[in-house]
């Protein structure tokens, strides 16, 4: 499995769980906001996956000598790395927020 998917495996579970707990706190009570939030998240995750794949493609192009510029490959790799970093941060914040909500329940 792609390391990106592995690291972000927990994310899809969160938005679903929040509404069923009674919808307290600021993480979105109603189904609609939570739904659109998870949709945005999924899109973002797909984007991170996509940027990884793109980067691999450009790097392969350089290494196989099919005419790709080195700077293009390097920039694609950096963008994929940073996208991944961003998602990691988002994941961490979400987990923290989820744990916060959990504490509030008890």
């Amino acid at each position: 499995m792609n390391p990106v998917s592995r690291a972000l495996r927990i994310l899809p579970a969160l938005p679903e769980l929040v509404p069923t707990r009674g919808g307290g706190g600021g993480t979105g009570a109603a189904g609609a906001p939570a739904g659109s939030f998870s949709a945005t998240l999924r899109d973002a995750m797909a984007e991170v996956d996509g940027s990884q794949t793109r980067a691999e493609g450009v790097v392969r192009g350089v290494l196989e000598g099919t005419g790709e510029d080195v700077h293009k490959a390097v920039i694609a790799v950096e963008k994929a790395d940073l996208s991944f970093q961003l998602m990691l941060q988002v994941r961490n914040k979400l987990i923290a927020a989820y744990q916060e909500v959990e504490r509030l329940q008890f």
Partner: protein
Amino acid sequence: MGLIDTPMLRVLSGSLDVNAFRQRVISSNLANVDTPGYRTRDIDFHRALTDAVASSQEEDGNGGGGLTPVARKLQGLIERPDGNNVSADREGLLLAATQLRFSLSAQLVKDEFHKILSAIREGA
């Protein structure tokens, strides 16, 4: 373009592409400095830059592609008896200048990525 995209990155990425391409045109000119009948070629640098930045705003998310600049024959250069009009001085200067522009753009790209990383780590 993905999650990571800033106007600065677009401009710098375009600058790298255009300068890399121009270097290829210049090296063709230099390689043919002694070829009878060869005419110097160059790109419309300013136009190529604006085109590169504009095309990166509407691209499909692939880091590359975009428009390839057009290399046209230059007018106004002195022609030697065999028809060759390559000026070693002009090409030599341009080689150095293009390399510097590329170098500057690369360094700035690096800085931009550092800034973005800092924003990701500190912010949110």
